[in-house]
């Protein structure tokens, strides 16, 4: 143990007699000055404050001080605060949400007929970006599909042969691939089929293509899910694979043009292609901290209130003098624009900052999974990574 190793409890108590709660709270703040940001790094590392403070990992202390406050839990939009975590862990959760949670998206498009003006590859790219949804249980048990590289790509082949996946992962089957087809042809509206004569309307001056033609706009709801094999049990009724937003415009057609294709959807991660990312975005911000060190009263307080978004600063009537005094009401609404630091009248009266371990997460799902389940998956995935490397570590130690 080093010389600054933690002391016994009595020695600690003696050393900490001089430290007030306020001073301890100051250690949690990242200071935001007019043109600099200071005290950014976390200081809860053993030895940073000397032997008087024991910052070594203690699961019970962590469990006691960790707080999770929920603000909003709509199905595709969740906002919650994690208090007491370190930035590296919160960032790990955020990165996993964006890039490592598997989801389903269209990957291979087999085009039989595309006489539209949208090029094949552009059409395939657009189809890939359409967010899909379906039965959660079915989606979770889908297996991976790893397409074998083409025979002339020696570099990729060399890596592929050593890959450690399930042998059936290289052929598409009902456990790893979902098939969706699209078959749309555009034609003029006719009296017999549609009740209006498109050609006649055009001659008479109608320019709206949705009136003149049928299927001139190809929407996402025209994608047809074709369950294969055992998929009928997983994806039927409420759980069919369907686009989250049925009104996404895929292509525009004119009479005689036809799109006929079959899509293979597979499981992938956001790190491979952004279409596989299950979150529209997942982000966090730190809780802003506003400290009014000298009283701001009267008309100055009104100006001070206007420096912040509505609701951040409230004006309290001081009973003694009858004037308004500025107090901090709701720092969470603040956007830390530092407007108050631009004015000379508030110099020295206000200190801005952010609380280093209070993370206000905002997880917005694209619709395939629910936001709260996504965050839980992210936590479980980090745990699975740690477990995986524990196994690798055991193998490494055995080999030595």
């Amino acid at each position, binding site marked *: *143990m*080093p010389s600054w*190793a*933690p002391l016994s409890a009595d020695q600690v108590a003696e050393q900490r007699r001089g430290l007030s709660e306020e001073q301890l709270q100051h250690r949690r703040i990242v200071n935001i000055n007019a043109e600099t940001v200071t005290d950014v790094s*976390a200081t*809860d*590392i*053993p*030895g940073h404050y000397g032997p008087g403070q024991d*910052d*070594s*990992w203690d*699961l019970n202390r*962590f*469990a006691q001080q*960790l*707080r*999770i406050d*929920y603000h*909003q*839990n*709509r*199905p595709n939009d969740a906002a*919650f605060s*994690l208090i007491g*975590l*370190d930035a*590296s*862990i919160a*960032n*790990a959760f955020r*990165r*996993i949400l964006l*890039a*490592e949670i598997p989801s389903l998206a269209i990957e291979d498009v087999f085009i039989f007929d595309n006489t539209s003006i949208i090029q094949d590859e552009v059409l395939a790219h657009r189809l890939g970006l359409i967010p899909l949804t379906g039965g959660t249980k079915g989606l979770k048990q889908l297996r991976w599909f790893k397409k074998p590289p083409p025979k002339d790509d020696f570099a990729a082949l060399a890596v592929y042969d*050593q890959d*450690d*996946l*399930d042998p059936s992962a290289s052929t598409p089957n009902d456990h790893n691939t979902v098939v969706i087809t699209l078959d749309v042809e555009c034609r003029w509206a006719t009296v017999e089929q549609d009740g209006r004569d498109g050609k006649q309307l055009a001659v008479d001056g109608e320019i709206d293509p949705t009136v003149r033609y049928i299927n001139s706009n190809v929407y996402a709801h025209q994608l047809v899910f074709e369950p294969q094999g055992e998929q009928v049990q997983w994806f039927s009724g409420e759980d069919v694979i369907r686009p989250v937003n049925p009104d996404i415009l895929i292509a525009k057609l004119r009479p005689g043009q036809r799109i006929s294709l079959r899509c293979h959807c597979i499981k992938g991660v956001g790190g491979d292609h952004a279409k596989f990312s299950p979150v529209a975005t997942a982000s966090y911000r730190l809780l802003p901290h506003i400290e009014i060190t000298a009283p701001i009263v009267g008309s100055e307080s009104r100006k001070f209130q206007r420096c912040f978004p509505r609701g951040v600063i409230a004006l309290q009537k001081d009973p003694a003098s009858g004037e308004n005094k500025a107090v901090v009401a709701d720092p969470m609404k603040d956007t830390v624009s530092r407007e108050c630091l631009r004015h000379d009248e508030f110099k020295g009266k206000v200190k801005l900052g952010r609380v280093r371990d209070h993370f206000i997460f905002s997880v917005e799902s694209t619709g395939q999974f*629910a936001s*709260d389940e996504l*965050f*839980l998956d992210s*936590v*479980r995935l*980090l*745990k699975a*990574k*740690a*477990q*995986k*490397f*524990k*196994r*690798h*570590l055991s*193998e*490494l*130690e055995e080999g*030595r």
Partner: protein
Amino acid sequence: MAQDGDREMPDAGAGADATANGVEYVSEKQRLRLLPGSTDTAASFAFDHEDHTLGNALRYMIMKNPNVEFCGYSIPHPSEPVMNLRIQTWDDVSVFEILRKGLNDLEDLCDVVEDKFTVARDEFNTAHPEQAAGR
């Protein structure tokens, strides 16, 4: 019956119990290497296909250990999917123990976060049933 000493029962093969849970055990490729020049108290590890996600989190957990003199991670080149982690310890503590403890602590942390999050989420759902409508 004459006992001629204890008989050793040979262990079952390594893969024998693999399908115990019904989950198919797929052999994993080794993704952890020891870089040359490492000793028992000062070592560099190379994690394949890992990046800041695990690197920074693991570095934090390992730094919380008072036996660690130095812990840092780096990504040698962004084009290669490798993350290097160096651990140096005080006295004679083994780096492998430190790394294992760091991974264990990370798992425990994830468990605590998962439990607390589930509790907070369920409490919020019961308190605000109108937001959960449409699930």
